[in-house]
């Protein structure tokens, strides 16, 4: 855990929730009887409130891990805990999806048939814990906080892809999740929009300290956002090296020109490139 984070953790002791513990997780796919190992005895501890960047070549099995935490896929063995509560493990191969762990999807999953506001209100409306008026008031104010005023009544298809991503994050935060799971959410964005999105994401993070499990294959993104980088091996996937990013938060784009950033980039690029080459020669399909 980085020093900054430890401080933050001390300052708000007991407030931060969402520690993820992955213990010895194995996932074997068995399509047509030919067993393929996607995740190989993977163990990883993510403290509450950390931005943990999972970096690895395409198709290495990062998403399999995310799907296991979210409850979309079963695991073969091992166990995953959220705040010491078993999500999945022996006797319970698949976690139950829930609003404490919300996924922000690769291609975005705002419902195109609902207005942005209805999308943001969706989670709480489904859970039925609050009245409609309270939910919509909260949705409006959260959208305003994220700089989305004026787009409430537009459909997602009518706004830019950058705005859509922001709406999707707000939709997740409405439910006060402990963990946000990002599945390469900015992959399809151009680099200009991406840089704006990164700063916006950090801004949102500083306001709502949640644990962030962020999958990417973009090193620049990983170092800029993360407290820690977990560099994964190519399939089967397990942590190859964990690197602390000791650049203090809050960060802005001036980080990209700092010497420390360059050093970290140099340290990691080699590691990642090695795995990418392995994945390439193994002929992994993009995924």
């Amino acid at each position: 855990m980085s020093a900054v984070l430890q401080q933050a953790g001390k300052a708000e002791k007991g407030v931060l929730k969402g520690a993820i513990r992955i213990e010895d997780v194995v996932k074997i796919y068995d399509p047509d009887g030919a067993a393929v190992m996607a995740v190989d005895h993977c163990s990883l501890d993510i403290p509450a409130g950390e931005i943990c960047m999972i970096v690895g070549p395409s198709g290495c099995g990062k998403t399999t891990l995310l799907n296991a935490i979210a409850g979309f896929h079963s695991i073969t063995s091992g166990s995953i805990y959220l705040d010491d509560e078993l999500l999945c493990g022996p006797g319970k191969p698949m976690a139950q999806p829930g609003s404490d762990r919300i996924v922000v999807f690769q291609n975005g999953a705002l419902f195109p048939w609902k207005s942005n506001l209805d999308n943001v209100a969706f989670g709480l409306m489904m859970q039925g814990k609050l009245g409609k008026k309270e939910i919509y008031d909260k949705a409006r104010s959260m959208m305003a906080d994220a700089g989305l005023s004026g787009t409430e009544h537009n459909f997602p298809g009518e706004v830019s892809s950058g705005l859509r991503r922001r709406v999707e994050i707000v939709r997740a935060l409405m439910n006060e999740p402990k963990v946000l799971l990002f599945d390469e959410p900015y992959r399809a964005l151009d680099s200009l929009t991406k840089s704006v999105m990164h700063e916006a994401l950090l801004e949102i993070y500083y306001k709502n300290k949640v644990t962030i499990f962020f999958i990417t294959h973009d090193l620049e993104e990983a170092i800029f956002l993360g407290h820690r980088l977990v560099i994964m091996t190519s399939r089967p996937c397990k942590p190859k090296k964990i690197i602390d990013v000791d650049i203090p938060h809050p960060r802005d784009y001036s980080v990209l020109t700092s010497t420390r950033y360059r050093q970290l980039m140099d340290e990691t690029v080699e590691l990642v490139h090695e795995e990418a080459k392995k994945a390439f020669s193994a002929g992994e399909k993009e995924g």
Partner: protein
Amino acid sequence: MEIDQTVALLKRSMPFQTVPNDVLEAIAKLARYESYARGDVIYHQGDFADDVYIVSSGAVQHTLGIGFQAIHPEKILHSGDVFGWAAVLENQRSRLAKTVCLERTELIRINGEELINLFKASPETGDIVMSRFATMINKEYTLPEEVAGHVPHFTQVPVTVATGLTLTMFRLSQWLKSPKPYLMLTGFGILLATWYFTVEVWKLPRFVDMPGLTEVFKEWFSKDPIYGLSIYTPEYYQHIWVSVRRILIAFFLATVLGVPLGLFLGWSKTFREYVFPVFETLRPIPILAWVPLAILMFQGSETPVIFLTFLASFYATALNTMLGVETIDESYSRAAACLGASKWQTFKEVIVPGAMPFIFTGLQISIGVAWFSLVAGEMVSGEFGLGYVINTSYTMVRYPTIVIGMITLGIVGYVSSALVRVAGDYMMQWRVRELALGGR
């Protein structure tokens, strides 16, 4: 005196040039004068952006932070130049640049929020000023349009008021202005001309026995038709009405039964295992093969025809709805599960609306095949209807009436599928707007 000076300065600054005098005076009242010495820093990048500045005299160096993608991040500002515009941007309350005075400098500063509140009272002027701000940010400060796009708007953006009807009217007027209707008329012209020339002018072999264009149209619009059917005879409308009523009943039943069946087929794997093989075995049987059974099963002449029409329609609707459910991106159901929706809520909120585009495609096909099988049914059994008209006119050698029946079928069929399309557009505003933005 000071107000006059400020107004004069504002008039020299690019964003405020075109503002009427009374508004300028109101703005001038918000302004405060300040002087700085050489080397003074007015603000740093990242400071809270409260005020907009206009240089009265002197020179200010303006250096944009990296990461904002300015082509020329450095700029020297002189009298009349505006900076500190981050104070009027939406969602951007921190300074993007560092500003340093290069010599003794006089400035006026105006609070951004007060300025915006003032423009809320005169939104038209506000929008002009803000669009000039956007131009300035983009052209003079060489920042990307993304940044310039953050200037506020004061007049209502009419996006939300475009309901189904106004949108349809707008599209209609756009359509009339485009070359499309004239190309369409040309297409019809070519068809009719071919008919006219092959039958009546050139009298080609095999064509010469067909009813000609003039003969058919004379009969169709005649007050005293030779073969008893024209737009002036009540029987004509009775036939149309009987056919339309059969279509309405059959189409209604097919939709009410076919859409839920298709939704459940797509949604529940178990249900599909039971039903789909049966469905797929029955589906390829041509409608005409059902005629004897339909007559045996149902009494009278009305129900068998409706049954046949329903059957064809039902398959098309159910199958397309099922495909619609299958094509919904899995992320949507997963997102719903993450957000705490139950299985039934997911069905209602995700599966049904997500399949809607396919359902309406299915309904378009369904109404088409409904007309197809209706005519087949009416030709075999029935006492009224357009199919019956065509068939009896053939046996009774009233050839022009056959063509009248055919053209009428074409028109009524076209109108019915257009109505389905309009209903679809009305129910799926999200899709209409999305497609409209894509230029379709």
